[in-house]
């Protein structure tokens, strides 16, 4: 009888532990969505709504679509965004990348950009990822101040090379994506 009680207690405890962890995980998930995802969704809805309803969208579409619907155009876009002067300015919160991404998405939906260009476009709008955050990121890795001094320009210059390389790679990797379109 004693052994049975001990067994039941152990089962109860471990099930309780697992359910507790899952419940906490759900709580964390809801908090992440409330704090980080929903506010950005509202913000981007406002921006996209105004852009589309006011007609600015057509202007942006006319300039962006030709760039985003050819390999050369995408590489040009990458090079511009990866410029060491621009990349740290375009980085924060990936806001620019997210807005341009959403605009490109609606152009794909309208049929102005072929759908398989989605893949290279994902890299073309984002060669500046983290360029605003290099000193903080290195500090999180407990880097010496001298390393930060070298590291910031090293990463920025590196992006001039690896940014276009990523777009070209993604362009070749996009063959066979959405073949019917």
């Amino acid at each position, binding site marked *: 009888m004693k052994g049975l009680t001990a067994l039941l207690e152990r089962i109860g405890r471990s099930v309780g532990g697992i359910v507790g962890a899952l419940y906490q995980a759900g709580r964390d998930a809801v908090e992440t969505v409330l704090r980080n995802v929903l506010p950005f969704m509202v913000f981007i809805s406002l921006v996209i709504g105004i852009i589309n309803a006011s007609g600015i969208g057509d202007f942006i579409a006319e300039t962006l679509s030709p760039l985003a619907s050819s390999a050369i155009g995408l590489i040009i876009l990458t090079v511009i965004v990866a410029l060491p002067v621009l990349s740290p300015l375009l980085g924060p919160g990936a806001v620019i990348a997210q807005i341009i991404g959403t605009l490109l998405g609606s152009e794909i939906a309208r049929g102005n950009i072929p759908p398989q260009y*989605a893949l290279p476009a994902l890299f073309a709008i984002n060669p500046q990822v983290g360029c605003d955050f290099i000193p903080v990121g290195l500090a999180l890795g407990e880097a010496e101040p001298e390393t930060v001094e070298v590291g910031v320009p090293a990463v920025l210059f590196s992006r001039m090379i690896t940014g276009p390389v990523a777009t070209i790679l993604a362009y070749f990797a996009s063959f066979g994506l959405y073949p019917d379109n």
Partner: protein
Amino acid sequence: MDALARLAESFIGLFQEGADFFVALLTGIVPLLLVLLTFVNALIRFIGPERIDRFAVFAARPGIAFLPLRYLVLPVLAVFFLTNPMAYTMGRFLPERYKPAFYDSAVSFVHPPLGIFPHVNPGELFVYAGIAAGLTKIDLPLGDLAIRYLLVGLVVILIRGIVTEAITAIMMGRRTNDGDSEDSVAGARA
């Protein structure tokens, strides 16, 4: 009066367009995101992120053979388990001369997994979701795009790690030759 009414209507219309867009995002993205986030959060809780530390010490060794560990496996594990921005703390296990390259590699991986593992960077989901929303609107599947984004991302972070490591080495070497900052570079090499 008529003109005023029309003005009011177009004013509200400006925001109605945004509201419609918001509802589409809300129903299309949030439910799946919540369930998926819960699953991955629980998984990370059961595995325990502190285990990554031991692997980082191993991956920090010098040598060309360790390049894929340093700039592929370690950043992937760091970003998956620690997410943005805590993933960059893994740099503390690496020697100074590899830190910029590791950061470059890790930070470049906070978007490519978003199609499958949005928990790594939910605050910047729209880098991927913005383009994906357009494809959904014309009824195209996203699985293939998500997988290709992830795979190309893996190749790109390895390339970024290698290129940035080389550029860092050249720049640190130049500083030694300049002479005036010898001790700082010696410190950086330690």
